[in-house]
């Protein structure tokens, strides 16, 4: 396996509109090893589209183009739909924002997790069941036998997200894309879920792309941070160096968040004209 898990060069996601094509991701480039990369930005920054384009899950009529989009030396843009299906879930997985919507309401939790495994490995029923129970146990769910028989509406948001993680990690992928994995959860549960992802990623030696709007949150759970605005990467830095960020957009975002011991009478707001003009 090469050193680089993912290589992205000049990635573009384009949507046709009646006023011509619009790029929502405007030619971004980055590399990823077996490390934790955060992509941060506000709504419309293109961060989620970047995540989905790696799995080639942009719905038509959207288009993905790049001079290079390689995962483990496999050219993703060159793969047939069938070859992509063999990669999705098995080698690259994705956790989405809200388990209330991202789990199928009419299938049991056990069925949905088992399906993720059975799609990629031909295993006897008993073994699938054992792996599902073991995986639920790994995401720290008590009484996994009972939970496997429940439907998604019967569990809390935090538990739903741990189930989602179990489902996405059971085929043992190499890369996990977590798209706002905690923004639908209560604050006290957010840390639990992030700790869980972090632990499993490190333990299994995977790569992680965590997509979020919350700069402070990702600083703790990533090695490197890409800050995106309007389809472009405006800043790239080590997570530990986020406080010394250079770009006015990154600085503005950091300053705009209120603090517990807030003393400012007014919060600084972004003056978008500073860099939009360039």
């Amino acid at each position, binding site marked *: 396996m090469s050193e680089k898990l993912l290589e992205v060069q000049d990635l573009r996601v384009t949507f046709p509109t009646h006023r011509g094509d619009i790029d929502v991701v405007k030619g971004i480039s980055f590399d990823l090893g077996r490390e934790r990369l955060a992509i941060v930005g506000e709504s419309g920054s293109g961060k989620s589209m970047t995540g989905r384009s790696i799995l080639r899950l942009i719905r038509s009529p959207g288009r993905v183009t790049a001079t290079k989009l390689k995962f483990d030396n496999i050219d993703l843009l060159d793969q047939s739909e069938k070859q992509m299906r063999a990669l999705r879930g098995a080698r690259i997985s994705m956790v989405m924002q809200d388990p209330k919507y991202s789990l*199928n309401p009419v299938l049991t939790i056990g069925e949905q997790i088992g399906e993720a495994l059975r799609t990629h490995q031909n295993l006897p029923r008993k073994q699938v069941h054992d792996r599902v129970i073991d995986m639920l146990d790994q995401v720290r769910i008590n009484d996994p036998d009972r939970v496997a028989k429940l439907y998604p509406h019967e569990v809390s948001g935090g538990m739903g997200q741990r189930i989602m993680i179990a489902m996405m990690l059971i085929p043992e992928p190499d890369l996990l894309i977590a798209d706002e994995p905690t923004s639908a959860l209560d604050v006290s549960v957010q840390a639990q879920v992030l700790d869980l992802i972090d632990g499993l990623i490190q333990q299994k030696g995977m790569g992680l792309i965590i997509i979020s709007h919350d700069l402070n949150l990702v600083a703790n759970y990533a090695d490197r941070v890409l800050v995106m605005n309007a389809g472009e990467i405006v800043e790239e830095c080590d997570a530990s160096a986020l406080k010394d960020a250079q770009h006015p957009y990154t600085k503005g975002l950091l300053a705009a968040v209120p603090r517990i011991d807030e003393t400012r009478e007014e919060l600084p707001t972004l003056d978008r004209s500073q860099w939009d003009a360039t």
Partner: protein
Amino acid sequence: MLAYFAKRIGMMVVTLFLIITLTFFLMHAIPGGPFTSEKMLAPEIEEALNAKYGLNDPLWVQYLNYLKGIITLDLGPSFKYPGIRVNDLILDGLPVTAKTGFLALLCVAALGIPLGILAALNQNKWQDTAVMMLATVGVAIPSYVVATVALYIFALQLNLVPTFGLDDWRGYILPVAALSGFWLSFIARLSRSSLLEVLGQDYIVTAKAKGLHPLSILFKHGLRNALIPIVTVLGPVVANLLTGSFVIEQIFALPGIGRHFVLSISNRDYTTIMGITIFYAAFLMVMILIVDILYMLLDPRIKLADRNK
């Protein structure tokens, strides 16, 4: 669960009782009797007939007698056809009505849903446009117009199918098509929009991210969710196929229950009107119960038993 069904069936009995009572007293509130007609009967004969059928008893005695009959599943004698009981009229027409109704329902489900899926999967392509155009026509034109025009073209002009009767399978084609046309179009439209909505949900993206085959995504994740609203309307669809059959049976001269019902009204055949009304009401309630059970099987979020807590 059992308690829920016991309760539901209890409610059905109460509803049925109310319908019986209401139809009975409404029937008797109409001026004139079953034997008043254009040809004036001799007063003595009318008197004798009234006595024979117990029409001279006080209303509440008649009512109690009627109820007693219903408990023993006897809907009473027909006032118009001497010696024939309403039970016989219904049993006589039932095979025809049930057969056309069932075939129509089958058409609605077995054609309407796949057409909707076809349209949804090819959104904004020619397949979608074609299905939606047909469906719009089907919803817009009333079934009796379709029936009459089809009868004229296929039976009279082209001689492909018989103009009336059900002597062989070809006789069913036009009545079933006319009966199911509207609801087939309706269900096709509903299936399309329901499936499109489901395919836009996050859990479909999840299924794709898991690397599932498109067919598995469509059937296991898509359709099972998309069917929920379709099943909900199937109850009313059955009801409307029934009422639709009154008209269709007239046009195609089919010997079904609907024809008896229409005739019984112009004949003032009280017991037949009441009998068929009650029969249909009971049938509908059973259908709605079945739909609710299906609904619960499809959607684990619905726990019928919980609603009564």
